[in-house]
């Protein structure tokens, strides 16, 4: 499923960026450029070849890890994205962990205390936070914790002088590997606000998901059996039910990663986080369409890879799943 999906996505991206009525070359150069300049630019970008040939050239390049060159900086797009990608991965993982923590604990507690304050508050939180734009929550945090209280930095990934030696590109991990504690603290201080904003937005979906699946589990026979054996409620919730509810939760959570990445584009822009989200926005601002196309292709690749990973993890966690 995943491989054809990737091709369809590529085709779609290609269609959007090359065939839709808006002409990328025209909008790159502005309306008043003379015809000869437009023709030359078209030729330079390979846009004058037959459309099918262009697609195959593009896909062929993609498989060799070649996304073409940026129309603006003339650097290979793959290198540029490669430098930005770790920042996005770090932010996404951090946000995911926060969403997971809020979602699982609050969801499990809400199931345990059905219709009590913790459950009702959880339902209100889920509906409310779903309506909050991630960039607004980010700005609120910036104003509250950055401008008013002056606790945390509100932009960037790390203070320039503390940049750790890059191994994986994930600053939190790199600074731990090299045992660079000041860098670790600084990177952590920078990631808390964007990570929290991103994580909280997604947590509403996790919370509802965990709660509804756990409620379903609690009506199953194995829970009744566990209760009859006198097992503590706490253990029934966290060990028996949560474990069994985990496969459907995992599947949805994996799919939410796509949402998390969309949220990352907005979060990165809000916090000047130097990942592929702010790269994409910057490239759109400069009308650098080859780079835009490359970035979106990478998004498609990430979505497909995540889908495959979710399937594999499901098969590992649940022995009933076979492919």
């Amino acid at each position, binding site marked *: 499923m995943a491989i054809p999906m990737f091709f369809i996505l590529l085709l779609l991206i290609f269609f959007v960026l090359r065939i839709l009525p808006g002409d990328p070359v025209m909008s790159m150069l502005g309306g008043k450029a003379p015809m000869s300049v437009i023709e030359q630019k078209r030729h330079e970008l390979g846009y004058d070849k037959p459309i099918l040939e262009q697609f195959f050239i593009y896909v062929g390049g993609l498989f060799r890890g070649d996304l073409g060159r940026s129309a603006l900086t003339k650097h290979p797009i793959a290198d540029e994205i490669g430098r930005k990608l770790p920042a996005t991965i770090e932010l996404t993982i951090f946000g995911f962990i926060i969403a997971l923590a809020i979602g699982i604990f609050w969801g499990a507690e809400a199931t345990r205390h059905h219709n009590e304050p913790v459950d009702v508050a959880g339902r209100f939180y889920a509906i409310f936070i779903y309506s909050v734009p991630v960039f607004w929550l980010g700005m609120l945090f910036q*104003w509250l914790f950055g401008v008013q209280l002056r606790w945390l930095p509100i932009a960037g990934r790390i203070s320039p002088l503390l940049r750790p030696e890059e191994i994986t590109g994930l600053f939190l991990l790199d600074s731990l590997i090299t045992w660079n504690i000041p860098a670790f603290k600084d990177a952590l201080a920078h990631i808390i606000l964007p990570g929290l904003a991103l994580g909280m937005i997604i947590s509403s979906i996790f919370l509802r998901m965990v709660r509804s699946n756990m409620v379903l589990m609690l009506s199953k026979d194995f829970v009744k059996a566990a209760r009859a054996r006198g097992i503590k409620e706490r253990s029934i919730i966290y060990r028996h039910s949560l474990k069994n509810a985990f496969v459907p939760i995992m599947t949805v959570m994996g799919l939410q990663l796509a949402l998390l990445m969309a949220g990352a584009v*907005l979060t990165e822009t809000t916090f000047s986080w130097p990942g592929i989200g702010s790269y994409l926005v910057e490239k759109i601002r400069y009308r650098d369409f080859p780079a835009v196309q490359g970035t979106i292709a990478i998004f498609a690749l990430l979505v497909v890879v995540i889908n495959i990973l979710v399937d594999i993890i499901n098969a590992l966690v649940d022995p009933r799943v076979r492919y």
Partner: protein
Amino acid sequence: MKKEWSPSYRLGKALSRVFKNKSGLMAFIGLAILVTYIIFAVFAPYIAPYDPTVKSGPAYSPPTKDHWFGTTNLGYDVLSRIIYGARIALLIAFLAVAVAAAIGIPLGLLSGYIGGTFDRILSMIMDAVYSFPGLVLAIAIAAVLGPGIINVALSIAVIYAPTYFRVIRNQVSSIKDDLFVEAARAIGARDRTILLKYILPNVLPSVIVVLSMNLADAIMTEAGLSFLGLGIAPPTPDWGYDLSNGQRFLLLNYWWMIIFPGMSIITVVLGFSLFSEGANEYLNPNVGETRR
């Protein structure tokens, strides 16, 4: 006349039934919020205290008696911009959802009814679009099409069309062999008639809840696009643009430029979600616990 027949009695009965359960109340609150914003949008010139695109006071004024929500860096009245901003937000959301439904529903009908390879290919395309981060796709399309109400609405419509397609297609393929369809075929009804007169009325109700939920998402996506500078060209009042404009002055502690536009996005999205949530549980009481 018997008491039970009087209109006011029946209205009271119906209302008390709606409010007896929480979902009815939720739907009502959501609807109240939505009606407020629709009134804002329609009657903006009569409600807004100032012209939203004309300097109406000192720049950077915090909330005062004259400017309840303060003014922007150009001296525009924030409250007036919020009231006028409802126009763009609602207009684009309704347009986008209408286009998405107009693409998704017919394709879903055909795909479910015809089946076979056609169905498999179309489903795969729709699933691919569905699984892709919607905002990223909308960003790409909006970037190519350029600014403008129609263009932004189209970019948002593309990402929601698969939702309608999936809902309709699955329902059609599950009822297309039902007895009433076979009966229609047996008396010689043409495919067109079967699809439009027999199947469509049966699958359409399921779209209502999706519609309301999508309106909420569409408003959110529009705000995101205009926050990134891909929405309507300034100075047209637009909540997302106002937020990104306000962020530039955050360090100077001009909080009113971000708090109020943000609250308006939140309340209108909340209105749509409460309405769809409440309406869904009210209409299908059995699925409430297991949804999502």
